[in-house]
Structures are given as structure tokens and as C-alpha cells.
């Protein structure tokens, strides 16, 4: 009989091996999925996992697509570590884009290098404020932050719809539900820093967030308190950690980062607010956070990998005529396998003889 046995201490090796194992399993089962769809599994796997890293156009896309994922996931990971489940990053992402976008649209046409920083600040504040709703309700009324933050995603989506058909509608847009194009407003354009690497300001901010989060967790009292709260909530209270502050801090940080990501997406790839603006980055970032072991550096790597599945997914979609949803199945599978093999970190399988 095979049974689980708890390890004396979590295995460090498994901590890093399990994500690789999960990727491997996803390749195998994803391949089977493509085969079932009648597509060449080897070509598909190659396009998703190899080509994005070898093709120079795709390489540039990795950071561009990975940036927002990393930025959101780093914020989420702080909360997840503390047992604060912000599932509504998608809503904070949308509100960030609306908030920052509104500033840009209000200033539309006005030159100035301060325009983009101001928009970024507004985006971060909007995301922060949106995340503070579940934080406040959790601290004050003990309301479950998972459900509240998620409900607010649907509210934000409808708010976006109201905005692009109302206050932020393009006055010259002949009734289309969309805002003016920020892509044609030079001061609101996101500068590309290193073109060959696809590094824009958003990417740089994401890398900065990784470094800051790493330092926070390793060296700062708040990081210590976040870890403590997640691992042993009663010990945290005994130590003197105020649970309300941890809830507010982690939700606030993740909301601000998601809001910033939303703004960068708006002034970068999207260019304008439309009802199609939400791409589900807020949800995919949850996968990125777990795949990266809630560790900032791991999240950076996981974000790049996830970006590859997006970039490669597009290739597969066109080259093999696969529905866009296939790639989401792929990502969901990845998270599933990761959670399944995660057991190896804290437990090990032992073969046990039955008593005679």
C-alpha cells in the first residue's frame, strides 16, 4: 500500500522541482488534448513552449505580455501568503485602467512628461480603492474577501460598460462603445526602454515590484508579519500582528499593482477603453502566483512562462485552427497539476507493507 507521510520539514528541492513537473505533465496531457482535437500535439507543444523563446518577435512579446501578469501576481502573492484571498484582481485591473484612463482622457492632447506618471498614479489609486472595499468589509464586518472581491469584478465590468457608453465615450466615435484612442496621444504613450528585449516602462515596474517584494519578505517586519499570519494566524496575533492591517496592506498593495497593470495595458497594447478590454489577466495572474510558489523570483519566471503560453497560444490558434479557449484549458491544467504535485513538498509517498 502506498501512503503519505508528512516530512519533518518542507523539501526545498521539491519546492523548485514541482513546478517543472507540473509543466511536464501539462505538456503531456495538453498534447493528448490537442490530439483529441485532431491536431498535431508535437507541433502544438513546440509552438507553445519552445517557439516563444526562440523566435525574436515572440521573445519581445514575452516581457510585454508577462509584465502585467507579473505585476499583478506579485501583489496577489503577498495576500495569498497571509491567507488573504484577493480573487478580484481583474476588477482592480479594470478600475485602474478606467481611473488612469479618465485622467488621460481629461488631459487629452495636453503635452507634458508628467501626464503618464499622473495617469499611472491615478490607475494605482483606483485599483487600491477598489481593493479597499473587500478589505474594509473584511476587517469591519468579517465578510469573506473571496466573494466580495469577486463580485466586484462583475461590478467593475459593468462600470466599464457604463463608462464607455457614457462619460468616457469617444465624442467623435459615431456611437461605438469605446473611448478616444490614447495611442494617438503622445504624452500618454508608454515609452519602450529596450526595444530588442521588449522592455517598456510597465515591464520595468514589474521587475521593480519583484525586487521590492523579495526584499520586503526577506528582511522587513511587514513581510515577516505577512508570512507569520499565513502560516500561523494565532501565533501572529500572539506576536502582536494586527490582522486588520495585514488584510488592508496586502489587499491594498495588490489592488494598487493590479490597477497599475491595468493602466499599462491601456496605454500599451490596448490603446483605448472598450468593453473587450478585460482579458482575464487578473485571473491568469492567480495561476502565475501559485506556479511561482508565491515567491517573487518564482513569479517572474512563471510570468514569462505564462506569457509564452499566450504568445504560443496565438500561434497555435492561427496555425492549427484551434479555438482560443484551448489555451485557457491549458493554463487551468497547469494550475491543477501544480496543486496536485505540490503534495510532494510537505509529504512523501512511502511504500508500506501491510501487517501480516
Amino acid at each position, binding site marked *: 500500500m502506498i501512503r503519505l507521510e508528512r516530512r519533518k*520539514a518542507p523539501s526545498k528541492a521539491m519546492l523548485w522541482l514541482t513546478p517543472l513537473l507540473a509543466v511536464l505533465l501539462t505538456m503531456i496531457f495538453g498534447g493528448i488534448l490537442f490530439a483529441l482535437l485532431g491536431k498535431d500535439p508535437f507541433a502544438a507543444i513546440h509552438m507553445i513552449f519552445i517557439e516563444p523563446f526562440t523566435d525574436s518577435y515572440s521573445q519581445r512579446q514575452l516581457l510585454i505580455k508577462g509584465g502585467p501578469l507579473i505585476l499583478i501576481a506579485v501583489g496577489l502573492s503577498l495576500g495569498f501568503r497571509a491567507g488573504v484571498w484577493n480573487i478580484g484582481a481583474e476588477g482592480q485591473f479594470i478600475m485602474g485602467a478606467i481611473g488612469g484612463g479618465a485622467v488621460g482622457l481629461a488631459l487629452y492632447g495636453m503635452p507634458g512628461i508628467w501626464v503618464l506618471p499622473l495617469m499611472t498614479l491615478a490607475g494605482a489609486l483606483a485599483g487600491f480603492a477598489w481593493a479597499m472595499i473587500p478589505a474594509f468589509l473584511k476587517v469591519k464586518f468579517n465578510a469573506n474577501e473571496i466573494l466580495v472581491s469577486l463580485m466586484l469584478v462583475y461590478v467593475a465590468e459593468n462600470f466599464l460598460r457604463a463608462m464607455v457608453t457614457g462619460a468616457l465615450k469617444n465624442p467623435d466615435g459615431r456611437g461605438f462603445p469605446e473611448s478616444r484612442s490614447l495611442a494617438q496621444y503622445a504624452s500618454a504613450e508608454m515609452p519602450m526602454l529596450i526595444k530588442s528585449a521588449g522592455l517598456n516602462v510597465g515591464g520595468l515596474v514589474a521587475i521593480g515590484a519583484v525586487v521590492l517584494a523579495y526584499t520586503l519578505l526577506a528582511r522587513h517586519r511587514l513581510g515577516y508579519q505577512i508570512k507569520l499570519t499565513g502560516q500561523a494566524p494565532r501565533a501572529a496575533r500572539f506576536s502582536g500582528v494586527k490582522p486588520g492591517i495585514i488584510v488592508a496592506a496586502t489587499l491594498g498593495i495588490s489592488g494598487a499593482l493590479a490597477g497599475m497593470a491595468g493602466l499599462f495595458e491601456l496605454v500599451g497594447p490596448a490603446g483605448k477603453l472598450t468593453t473587450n478590454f478585460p482579458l482575464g489577466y487578473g485571473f491568469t495572474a492567480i495561476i502565475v502566483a501559485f506556479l511561482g510558489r508565491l515567491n517573487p523570483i518564482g513569479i517572474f519566471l512563471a510570468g514569462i512562462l505564462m506569457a509564452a503560453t499566450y504568445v504560443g497560444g496565438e500561434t497555435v490558434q492561427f496555425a492549427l485552427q484551434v479555438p482560443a479557449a484551448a489555451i485557457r484549458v491549458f493554463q487551468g491544467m497547469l494550475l491543477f497539476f501544480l496543486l496536485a504535485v505540490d503534495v510532494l513538498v510537505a509529504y512523501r509517498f512511502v511504500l508500506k507493507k501491510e501487517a501480516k
Partner: protein
Amino acid sequence: MEPLLQIDALSKAYPGVQANDSVSFDIEHGEIHALLGENGAGKSTLVKMIYGLVRPDTGSMTLLGQHYAPARPGEARRAGVAMVFQHFSLFEALNVGENIALGMEDAPDRRALAAKIREVSTAYGLPLDPDRLIGDLSVGERQRVEIVRCLLQNPKLLIMDEPTSVLTPQEVEILFATLRKLASEGVAILYISHKLEEIKSLCNRATILRLGKVVGKCVPAEETARSMAEMMIGAELAMPKARDYQPGAVALELKALNLPSLDPFGTSLRNVSLALRKGEVMGIGGVAGNGQDELLLALSGERKVPSGMITLNGEAVGDAPPEKRRALGLLTAPEERLGHAAAPDMTLVDNAVLTAQTRRKLTKNGWLNMRKAASFSDEIIAKFDVRTPGNHVVARALSGGNLQKYVIGREVLQRPDVLVVNQPTWGVDAAAAAAIRQALRDLAANGAAVLVVSQDLDELMEMSDTFAVLAEGRLSKPRPAEGLSIEEIGLMMGGTHGMEPMAGAAT
């Protein structure tokens, strides 16, 4: 007549520890048989094998001449073996009747069962109301539920795992009367304990376990407590040094402390008052669940009370957060090591930071000084003889005794003015327990005030200068510990929760 249960060379190994090593003994019909041993001697593993919760690696059992190898508790129950657990297997949000039905193989319908419960529980002097929620019952009453559940199935063998550790002396007498009545009706009782006086007065025979092996068999009535203790421990125990008690100024004062419990099944504190002086060790006894947890939360600062209810060296601190209290010199060590006093999956260094940030100056402007934290951790390990491969080990990996030494050491080495500890030696081996008690007394001898909350009356009698009892959230008036009799303590502990000893059955 053949014995009821023959146990033949049972062995069971867990990773790194041989829990039972070829254990053999017999239990006769109608006898009360003691299974004696220290924490970790393998008593629990042995009874779990008899009750079908654990399968032995090797060895066999014979019940009434039949081969007996229960794969599940249900099989054990059908064969006539019943068990009352040390930590009750009860469901707080369910009522007495439902709890009893869950433990029976063929439970009758609700009404018939309720009538049966009333009948049997009254017959054995343990009256129960089937409709009450478990969460609303006292600890003694909960144990009654466990016993009645067993009795309803007419067991041939009743296993009792440390039944008296949670009872007041009066409740213990009632329990013993019930057990003697059962034995006189032919039911065998396997009685697990490390309380020697109890075993002397109750049990017909005893089997003594040490480190998983049978190290002795005896008739308790013919032994002295000391001779059994030496068999059990395998060495003579060092007693703490006596010391002069010279009380100084009042360090910690509680003035009519009131605190409603947040746990729907907890006990609220009512009008708790005490004055603890420098150099004094005050023991607070009482059965668990009578407000001990709430008292600790109020003192550690995890729950806030109006500021004047708690004063520390004259300063009102009732509403001060934990870190503020530590800065002022009030330290606490909660009962539960894993998850409350220490974070199980964090290293010993991280766990040193848990309470020592302020007094040991381990942070500066919010940044942690990990080098300082590591050296403090090493200091605790060295001075308190914590057996560990190093300070990088996670707390969970340490044995109970070693982790407890680490937790107590962490607080003691911060040189508190007042130290409050809850159950300082619960589940700790004898040597570590003695070391911890000595450290606490040394702390008081150096002028600190120490408050020890414990359920172990022997421990409190050994350590305390003054003694009080917490019962149903109220604290008795503290009295000098010297010269207190067990009867007086029993009365302080708040009687018997309505239990009456059976006529003629009591000693």
C-alpha cells in the same frame, strides 16, 4: 478461566521511533488493569491497536479465546471493546443523543435512544440530558457522555485513556465509584494513567511501559508510589530546590477583570482579581475550559479589556497591544506550542523574532536584523539545552519537550518583570518538565513575578507560593500554597457539576 484479552508480542514502529516493542500481557474478566507509563512510553499506540485505530506491525491478540485483529474501531466495538478517549471524540455543535448515536453500531431511533440514555446514565450515577449541546457541557459532563456511549453497548472491555486529568477530585471519586460498579458486574477496565496514587487506590494489577517495552508488572496495592515511579521513569527524579519566598511590590494586578468569550463554547471571565508580587510564583489551577484561554488572551494582549482592569507595575495596560506589554515587561507563553506560541513551519530563528523583536531590539526602522535574531536563537538553544541540529530547523521538527524549552527559554531570557505561562509542562517528558519548572522558579528568585496556569495539581503544589483556582470563569481568592489539602483544593475547584456519588459504592 481463560483471560478476557491476551496481548502477545505486539510491536509497532513509526518513522524514527519504536512505539511498541513486543508488548505482552493479559487482562482478566472484571479486573481494573492499569497501564502505567510516562508520556511517550507507548501507551496510546498500544490502546489504539486494541481499539482498531492502528494496526500492529507484528504480534497478535486473543479475545475470549478467539483471534482478535480489528481493522476498524467498528469491529472492535462489535467484539465488545469500548474506549473513552483522553481528548474526547465529541462534536460540540451536536447534542448528547446525536453524539452517542454516532459512536454506536446499531443506534436505535432518536426517541428510544434518548430514553435509554436517561436510564443507563442515571443507573450509573452519571445523569445526562440527551437534548443538550455538547458545547454547553462542562468537561466532566462531556466525559460522562463518552462513558455512557460505551456503556450502552454492553462492553466486555472498557479502555479509559487518562480519564482523571480533566476532573476535579470530587468528580474523580464519582468516576471511580462507577468503574468499581462496572468491574463488579464483570466488565474489565484497562486504565491508562501516570497518576500513581490513583492507580494504587483503584487498580487490581498494573503493567508498566517504558520506551515501548513492558518493564514491569505489579499489584499496585502492594507497591509504594515511589517504587512504581522509579519503574516508570527508570531513574530517580531530581526535585527542584526549595527556596525562600520573599514577596516584593505588586507587579501585576487584575481588578475585576471581565471578558466575554468569543468562542460560542468558551467560558467568559467574571470579576477576576489578583495581585501578583515580585518574587512570587502564583499557581492557578482548575479544569481546562474554565476560562484559562480567555485569561491568557487578556494578559498577552490578544484580547483587549478596559485599561484599568490590568495594571503592570502600577501602569494601566488592559488595552495595550502585545508589543507594548512586552516593552513594559509583561511576557506570556500560551499553552499550545505549535500554532500559537510558535509558528510550526518557520525556523527557530524566525520563531525567536516572534516575541523578542522589541526587548531584544531585533528590528530597526521596521527592518529585521537576522544576525541578531540568530544569535538570540542560539542563546536560547544553549542555555535551555534545546536538542536541535541548529537554529535553521523548523519548529515542527522539534519534539514537544524541546520546543517547550525553546518557547519558555525565549521568554525567560528576555528578563521579564512578569511572566505568565499556561500549562508549561503539558506533554513534556519528565526531565524537560523538571528543567522548565526550575527555570521558572529561578526567574522568580531573581525578582520576577511568575503566574503559572496549569491543570496539573502536583506541579502547582510543587512550584507555587500562592494558589488560586479558576472555575467557570471566576477566580478563587489566592491562598498560600503551603498546607493546602486536596479536599480544600477540590472545594475551590467548584464541586462536582451536580454529580452525586452512588450510595455504598464510594470508598
